[in-house]
């Protein structure tokens, strides 16, 4: 343990870093990770991260059945946005098979993915606000998430572990009145987001705690292979939906919010803005949804 001591000064104090074990069961109750942090007061000097507490052997289980059997496992990879995982896996298998899903299916996949992305960001931002003490924001965001989960349930039959994608299509078509319900739900979600924005973004406490903390620079983010809103918060304007478009993202208009400083506050802002962009995408896709079959025949 490093220690520093000044010699022969009567008021000299010896300081040592403190080691604190956070987890694996810890109050941030989503996901388990063990952090053994070395603290200098309140500043984290070094961390040792221990993962594997939620290793459930997906890859090994995937060896045991046909390709569609993997889809329930794919749901549970990132259980906050399970539809995106479903479709990511289905897209990989479809690429290997050399097939492409029908146009209607691709639009449906875009709509469901973006709804899933909004629920993901709601959970993420809500939970991080809760951990800072802003429990009200968490409640508001979970309320908004419930509305979206009701939509997801209307389409897929399940709120969370949906198993909706299939190789070559999706499980079932969108139900009747889905477009009207979605538009209404997105209006309500927008109101909630405005409220939460008013509660957090210019909040002195929130800003003090989130600005300048957890800084990841551009080079570090790229070297660690980070993608998604984390990377965009660090200033790299890389979104695979724009760079390597899949499904019908190249036909839909949306912006890619990018942060500057790579701190927690930028990542929060990126996520809030991405929710708005996702809602834009859903509305465009609903407008342009074509008819036709949803599963290809092969």
């Amino acid at each position, binding site marked *: 343990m490093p220690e520093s001591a000044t010699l022969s000064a009567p008021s000299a104090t010896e300081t040592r870093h403190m080691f604190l074990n956070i987890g694996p069961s810890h109050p941030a109750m989503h996901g388990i990770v063990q952090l053994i942090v070395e603290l200098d007061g309140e500043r984290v000097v070094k961390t040792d991260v221990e993962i594997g507490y939620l290793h459930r052997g997906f890859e*090994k289980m995937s*060896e045991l059945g046909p390709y569609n059997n993997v889809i329930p496992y794919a749901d549970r990879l990132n259980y906050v946005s399970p539809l995106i995982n479903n479709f990511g896996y289905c897209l990989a298998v479809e690429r*290997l098979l050399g097939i492409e899903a029908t146009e209607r299916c691709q639009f449906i996949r875009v709509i469901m993915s973006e709804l899933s992305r909004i629920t993901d960001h709601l959970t993420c931002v809500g939970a991080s606000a809760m951990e800072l003490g802003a429990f009200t924001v968490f409640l508001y965001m979970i309320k908004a998430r419930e509305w979206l989960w009701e939509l997801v349930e209307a389409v897929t039959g399940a709120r969370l572990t949906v198993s909706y994608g299939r190789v070559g299509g999706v499980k079932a078509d969108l139900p009747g009145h889905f477009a009207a319900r979605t538009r209404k739900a997105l209006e309500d979600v927008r109101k909630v987001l405005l409220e939460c924005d008013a509660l957090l973004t210019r909040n002195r406490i929130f800003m003090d705690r989130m600005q300048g903390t957890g800084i990841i620079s551009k080079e570090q983010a790229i*070297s660690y292979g980070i993608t998604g809103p984390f990377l965009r918060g660090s200033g*790299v304007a890389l979104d695979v939906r724009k760079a*390597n478009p899949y499904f019908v993202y190249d036909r839909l208009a949306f912006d890619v919010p990018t942060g500057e400083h790579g701190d927690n506050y930028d990542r929060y802002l990126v996520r809030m803005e991405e929710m708005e962009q996702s809602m834009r995408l859903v509305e465009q896709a609903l407008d342009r949804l074509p008819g036709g079959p949803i599963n290809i025949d092969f």
Partner: protein
Amino acid sequence: MDQTRGPATSLRARLHASFPQHVLETHAYRGQETVLLKREGLLEVARVLKSDPVFAFDFLMDLTCVDYLTFGRVLSSRPSLATPSPLPYYMTPKPDPERWQRGVSDAAYRFDVVYHFFSSSRVHRLRLKVPLSAADPALDSLTELWKSADWFEREAWDLFGVVFTGHPNLRRLLMYEGFQGHPLRKDYPFNKRQPLVGPVN
């Protein structure tokens, strides 16, 4: 995207031209450029892939491993603790002799370590595969070039038993330290448990 790049100047062709002594084979199945590399050339090629502006691969997106122990072989039909996981019931296993004509013999080819690279500036991708033998599954570590290699290599060591020389901290990532064996290998039964507390089942 670089419009002048046609088949004659594809990534894999460039790589083959630069390192003919290391490249075993290349293909672009389904449009995904793949290069098979000898393990001695891995670090050198990786350095070039990162620094050369033609390639400019700043992202190591994925590093994983494939175990070919049961590939093309018929096994028992039910998984159990005694026998390894079989091929899925609908796959007719066929031995594939062409596969083994790569300058490596059947006995010496068990693992493939697979690297996926992505370039954010040039927006292209490349896959590198390095075949390894069962007797000596060792390889150079790429942690000095991409930090993402750190945990990926730990995972490959943990689940497959591939050793990465030069890795600063090669210990188990997902399983606990006392775990015996490498679970994702095809000869590890899928439901063989080694509990720390509690009964086996």
